[in-house]
């Protein structure tokens, strides 16, 4: 069962994502900021990460870069709101594999994960 780390500072968002992913056969880990995400990534080596861009403590891009440093093959999907194009661009250049627009279209979330982890 592929494992996905969901990173978001909003508990509500984490809960919705968890529900969706678990319904479709994914095992889910959660982190509420970038720092925790890096820690969890190292501990649990998930198959993919769904990472919010805007977060307290350590934002999504900083966390992405930290994770990439530790695992260059990390598959990180950035979650973004409209109007963050340059941040997403930066994330892609830093090695993010995909990006999803919030609020999530469930089909797109699943399609993106499927491409990355099967």
């Amino acid at each position, binding site marked *: 069962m592929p494992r996905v780390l969901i990173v978001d500072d909003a508990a509500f968002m984490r809960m919705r994502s968890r529900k969706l992913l678990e319904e479709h056969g994914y095992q889910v880990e959660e982190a509420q900021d970038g720092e925790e995400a890096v820690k969890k990534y190292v501990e649990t080596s998930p198959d993919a990460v769904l990472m919010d861009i805007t977060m307290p403590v350590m934002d999504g891009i900083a966390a992405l870069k930290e994770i990439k440093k530790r695992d260059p093959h990390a598959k990180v999907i950035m979650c973004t709101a409209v109007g963050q194009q340059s941040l997403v*661009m930066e994330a892609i250049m830093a090695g993010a594999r*995909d990006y999803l627009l919030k609020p999530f279209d469930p089909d797109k979330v699943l399609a993106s994960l499927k491409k990355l982890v099967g």
Partner: protein
Amino acid sequence: MAEGYTLSPEDIRLFLDETLDQLEVLEEEIVKLEGEGHDPRLLQDMFRIAHTVKGSSATVGYSRMSTLAHAMEDVFAAMRDGRLAPRQELVNVLLEAVDGLRGLAAEFDLSSGPDAEGEGRIDVEALVARLAEAASLGAGTYEVRVKFADDTVMPPVRALQVIQALQELGTVAGSRPSIDEIRAEKAGLDLSAVLVLASHVDETEVERKVGEVSDVERVEVRRFQPESRGTEEALAAGGADVSQRDAAALPSTAGDSVGDGGGSPGGSSGREPGGNGGSGSCGESATTDVPRLLGRSQGETIRVGIEAFDRLVRIVSELAIDEARLAEVQRRLAALDGHSEPIEDLEQITAHMSRLTTELQEEIMKARMTPLASLFKRFPRMVRDTAASSGKLVEFVVEGEDTELDRALIEEVADPIIHLLRNAVGHGIEPPDERVRRGKPEKGRVRLAARHVEDRVVIIVEDDGGGIDLVRVRESAVRKGIISPEVAAALSDEEAIELIFQPGFSTASQVNDVSGRGVGLDIVRTNVEKLGGTVRVKTSVGKGTTFALSVPLTLAVFRALLVESCGQEFAVPLSSVVEVTRVPLSEVKPVGQGHAIVLRGKVLPVFDLRDFAGRGNGVMASESGDGTPTECPDRSSGRALVVVARYEDVRVGIIVDSLLGEQEIVIKSLGRLARCARGVLGGAILGDGRVALILDVARVLEKAMGRSHISGSGSEGGNDDRSDYQLQC
């Protein structure tokens, strides 16, 4: 194509000059390529040069040259596309082709135009055949078009993802929109072309890779056809970054572009004539000018023939002499007539003219300064060839190529450097197996470095080879009769190494093609010293050898201290003058074969200019133009006037009769005379028309130091070497 030959001789000359410049760069890059392997940027530039040469030569109707350049272009394209590796054999063929292009440029007859029928000595067909053979390998270049879904969020980011995905497969040579545009977030739902150079994958793999990116609705992958020149044109515009910027010129489809860039109407400048050879697809107008703009950006200079420039220098030099003479006349008039108004006017005019002349000279001298890179870039090829033919492995390092030197001097130091580099590779560096046995890296290292040291340029040629065995040097010198066994035994190591500069000396045990041609380091030293330079060498057995050439920045004009001895004026380059002092004659003591004084507790070798100038030498007198030589003044005052001069870190005292002052002087060759006068660099015409001899401080110093038992005529230590320093021809 011949109807295109309506260009003026000036156009042709520009074409030839530019072509030769480009070939020099190309040669350098080919050699670099061999060392560095697949470097897309380098290959792109090589491709561009071949392409430019092809276009320019086609424009002047020189079909043999454009044919050869075209064949090279194909090879570079194949290498760039990863279809061909820069193996040594291939590099050899490419270098031969560069030589071929050079030969073709040399065959080009200005009066009759290009010889399109091919009567020349360069066998273009054979070269083309070999190049074609070398390039006849598989293909691996794909042109990719991508359409994103209509509801794609942030399409520029998706476009970037596609580019990144393709970069994992190979090199992305260009795209539309360009990578820069995509990063600037200027991209829509279409990536209308991405050119990928990927040698190890097929179309399916490319398609699959792009399909991994979300929102990709459609992918088209096709093998890139070299015939689609439009794309090549776009890519020919420059290196990787540039080509990305220019990639808007990529055709919308590969098949619809027309024609061959070679036939396109080039600008009369002959630069980047293929720039508009692409199809009329979108982006055309914006991009065709880019190569031209690139060409112009470096073209803000005008070419002046070196002869024309030398004429300018000569005229300015004459002007400086007249200016000095005018000032002299003004002084004489002032002495006669006190402060009359016309004389004061004259004084103002001469003062102003003096400033202008100085400025003019400075500007001209500045313009004569050329970075050594123009010379140094010839050497990687030579070192490579020398290494290849002598079975050595050599890493060649060049440093300080930005260092500027008088153009005339650059030409003059070329041969000595070539000689030293060949020696370093051919004799200095050991064969790879021997190096390994000695615990050294298999690859030897030869370093060529230049830097300014005060008003001189020091050029270092260094190798990490076996060093010079001074025991063998002594033996060899004795065997060849250069010195007697007794002298050899008495020589210090420092002196012994000087033997390698003796005529007829060669340490090479065998004469070979590389450097043992019977002319040796004596020629190197002679040539460098003619320029007022020196050659010094340090060696350490097993560790390597370092040669240091030191030459003045310029030959033509410098400031000098004018001194006089027995009525003859001498000029001592001001840069070598340390101080002027007076000492009691009784303190000038004979030491060895020379004399010395003690100055502030240190022994200073001295040299009396009378030994050089005096004795009523007739040659000097007639040159001075005012009759008989002046009597040597009486030194009964008991004091000697000593000019302390230095050469590098060694000092010498020059005893003179009087000081005449400082002056900017222009060197005149003394022709026959100079050959007779070791110790004289040349002559300078003074304000009153007389000639001052410019002292070669290095030589004077050598004399005063009593080194003449090596460099002089006799090994017996006789006193006859003084004749070297007299003007007796």
